[in-house]
């Protein structure tokens, strides 16, 4: 008996289809145009740190992970799927599907520009088109920051990048936050930030 055979085939099919797919002007396949039937869950999973897993084992091949990332879609049901013209496979996502692991900054003040790079080498500049948002854990108020990448896909901003991000922050109307491309993104109420700093003193 071999329970793995159908899922192995499903994965091979997805890879073959994804490799065939033509990228649009942005180099990405037009996943929003495809409406295949749902094919199930074959044990694909993205952990909070951005690592992809297949049936519990880490996927080490970076090119394969990059390929998968280009056919990932976040649907109305709240779930993430790999989609091709003929397949739709669920991907379990622990937090966000991508992680922003590097940040560049140019300019100062309102004209400051924050550009993020993800673990799968997508880029997004925070601003009118790519929102930066912070969620606070309701219990311990731990912040989880996110940057919008494309469609309904976001990247969790790594702890490393968040250190640099907070160092660029300023206070506007009682809110502590950061500027990028003339948009102010609040991180936390200024009073809370002052309290954090006093805790450390």
């Amino acid at each position: 008996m071999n329970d793995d055979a159908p899922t192995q085939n499903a994965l091979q099919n997805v890879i073959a289809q994804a490799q065939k797919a033509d990228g649009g002007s942005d180099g990405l396949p037009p996943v929003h145009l495809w409406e295949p039937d749902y094919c199930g869950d074959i044990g694909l999973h993205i952990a909070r740190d951005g690592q992809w897993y297949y049936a519990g084992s880490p996927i080490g091949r970076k090119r394969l992970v990059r390929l998968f990332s280009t056919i990932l879609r976040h649907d109305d049901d709240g779930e993430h799927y790999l989609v091709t013209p003929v397949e739709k496979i669920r991907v379990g996502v622990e937090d966000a599907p991508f992680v922003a692991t590097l940040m560049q900054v140019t300019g100062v003040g309102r004209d400051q520009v924050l550009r993020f790079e993800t673990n799968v080498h997508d880029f997004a500049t925070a601003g009118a088109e790519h929102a930066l948002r912070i969620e606070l854990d309701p219990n311990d108020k731990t912040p989880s920051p996110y940057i919008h990448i494309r469609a309904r896909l976001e990247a969790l901003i790594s702890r490393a990048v968040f250190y640099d991000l907070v160092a660029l922050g300023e206070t506007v109307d009682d809110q502590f936050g950061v500027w990028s491309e003339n948009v102010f993104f609040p991180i936390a109420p200024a009073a809370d930030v002052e309290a954090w700093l006093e805790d450390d003193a």
Partner: protein
Amino acid sequence: MSTDYKTRIREAILADLPDHNTLYNAPGQIGDGRLDGGLVGRPRPNGNRALKLAAVLVPVVDYENEPKILLTRRADHLAQHSGQVAFPGGKVEAEDGGPVSAALREAQEEIGLAAEYVDVAGFLSTYETGSGFRILPVVGFVRPGFQLEIDHNEVAETFEVPLELMINEANYNRHEIEWEGRMEAYYAVEYEGYNIWGATAGMLRNLSRRMQT
């Protein structure tokens, strides 16, 4: 090594990024010529010229039974510090999002260590070098499974040293040499033919001292 070494490191190091003044204006908190902390008033080898901020990654690879520190040996043809053991890292460039992004970018460029494998734990005291840098050591736990790709323009090789060895202050030997007409001291640790000395040993010894107090 006890499995809670991560907690021990987190408790010993700085949880917050040092403030702007410490990073960009102040002397290094420790450094060449003030190896044991203190003595900030000692003349700097380079006088009082402005220091340049650099950031290095102190990569602690999270192997199950024996965590190790990942180090590089710099390429032999470089003008500065050629052949020396160093952390991945370098100057904080104007476009870097900040020193943490800079350390991770440099690690990616020099040895191909992808930033997604690094979980930043905190920071060590800034270290001032005789060559005019103020170095921020960024301590990160590195998830095993990464693949390295060395840029041989900058790095000759990488190697790993047991964390246990480097956090025992007794393993650091103090040396003195005559340098430009006066005696200078430095610390060194020898491991399997590698000589870890100078700023790299100074920063690691700072970690060892923090973990023992």
